[in-house]
């Protein structure tokens, strides 16, 4: 259960987040969508305690994120930023192993090893496990970082545009994987997505943001409405039912 209460965030006096209040129950996949500059990434950064809000607070299972000790939070919440320009020359396996750092402090036991192997297997990284990150393509690197977050094995996972740089097969595989983690393992997963149809097809809830505020929050069926989406994106959008799914056409 993660709660955002009256969060405000300003850059140089310009409000990027205004009075954002959001309560997400434990378990389930939530997508944050909205046009560029809506404040999606900033909200995710505040929820992931990478940025301190100027007002308001974020709590995770009653733990006040801005005040809780870093390691305690790292066992419950994992976050992946959009741009992972890691300069370090680490192997894929080393990077994924660092996901266990909050739990094992650098001395992985059998349980940690199992988590690392599992994360590598899920993302199909076994053939690349001993490659350095700077020898990988953008999509492969993205998968390595997602594997690290999975290995961290936290109840709450925040992913900022995890499908960037990925081809269709990997994008579908990862969003399906994330949905399974949310449903089968009861993890609370929040993803920022650009693709409305991906959000509608796979997520339990959608949060629509614009201009630093949350406009609406509901199920895909409630939000996939042509008028509403057209207004949000200031672009004519129509919604059709196709193969049992609601699809936005623009």
């Amino acid at each position: 259960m993660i709660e955002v209460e009256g969060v405000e965030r300003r850059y140089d006096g310009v409000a990027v987040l205004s009075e954002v209040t959001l309560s997400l129950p434990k378990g389930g996949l939530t997508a944050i969508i909205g046009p560029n500059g809506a404040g999606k990434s900033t909200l995710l950064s505040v929820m992931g305690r990478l940025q301190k809000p100027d007002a308001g607070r974020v709590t995770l299972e009653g733990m006040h994120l801005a005040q809780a000790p870093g390691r305690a939070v790292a066992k419950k919440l994992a976050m992946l930023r959009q741009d992972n320009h890691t300069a370090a020359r680490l192997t894929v396996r080393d990077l994924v192993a660092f996901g266990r750092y909050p739990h094992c402090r650098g001395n992985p036991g059998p349980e940690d090893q199992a988590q690392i192997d599992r994360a590598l297997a899920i993302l199909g990284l076994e053939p690349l496990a001993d490659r350095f990150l700077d020898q990988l393509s953008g999509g492969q690197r993205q998968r390595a970082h997602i594997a690290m977050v999975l290995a961290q094995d936290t109840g709450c996972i925040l992913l900022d545009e995890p499908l960037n740089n990925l081809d269709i097969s990997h994008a579908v595989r990862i969003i399906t994987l994330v949905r399974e983690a949310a449903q089968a393992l009861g993890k609370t997963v929040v993803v920022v997505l650009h693709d409305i149809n991906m959000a509608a097809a796979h997520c339990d809830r959608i949060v629509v943001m614009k201009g630093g505020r949350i406009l609406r929050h509901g199920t895909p069926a409630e939000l996939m409405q042509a008028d509403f989406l057209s207004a949000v994106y200031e672009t004519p959008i129509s919604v059709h039912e196709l193969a049992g799914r609601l699809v936005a056409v623009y």
Partner: protein
Amino acid sequence: MPEPHSPRPSSQQPGPAARLLFPLALGLTLAMGLASLFVGVSSVSPTLLWAEGGTGPATEVFLTSRLPRTLALALAGTGLALAGLVLQVLVRNRFVEPSTVGTTESASLGILLVMLLAPGLPVPGRMAVAAGFGLAGTGLFLLVLRAVPQRSALMVPLIGLLLSGVIGAVTTFIAYRTDMLQSLGAWSTGDFSVVLQGRYELLWIVAGLTLVSALFADQITVAGLGRDMAIGLGVNHRAVRALGLVLVALLSAAVIVTVGIVPFLGLVVPNVVSLLMGDNLRRTLPVVCLTGAALVMACDIVGRLVVRPYEMPIGLTMGIVGSAAFLWLLTRRRGHVA
């Protein structure tokens, strides 16, 4: 699954070759250490020492000069390579080392001021002042770095070199006005020929600092992944960075105060090791330290042999080896410097 696009050939994979690096570095260090003990103007050999049975001229030379010199070389090499490694990981730039970010020059300024204002200060006090100045210099560098919008990896060492130049100029100016230029030049040029028993022991602090770095190896590696990743993994980024900078300042100061400035080492050794086995400090730190020790000993031995019975200062040999290696690295690493 098939991976059609891999930007680099698979020969770069850290395979068995990377695992051989530690024993290789260890063997090299031991060999250089032995050579350093028995190479020099007066003849000292294991058989001679054995024949003297504990007292005699060869034993005397061995204990008061050769052994201290070899230990000093190993410790200084370890310290400088380690300082370069920690700095490169924390600044997240391949081309920095204490002498390219202002640490060394600031420490020198500190030592000059001590010689002028408190000439009686014992060596540990002198080192503390040098470390304090070195830390301030590094901090100034980081402040300038934050203020200058730079997206090129080569801008970072350029800024550092400019800053070093300015601080070095201040030092030279003060030394010039106070008639200290000659003595400034004398002690700041790295030289191990003056190392005798009783004049290098402060360098043992390097061993302690190496241990501390090893204990924090994982945290330093995580901090090197960047602030956001470090926070995500529950590592106190700011604290680890501060600790790392203090380590760098102390390591640099210990070496400068006892043997002077040895350029390039902190740049070359961590870069070569990083190319061969990556940046996971838990694995690379011992290899970096050993390679640093071996390289300094090798350069010193060369300096002792080339112009026998005289000696070339190590700064000269190291400068030649180091600048050649640096040029090679520049061309080699251009693809992934950032």
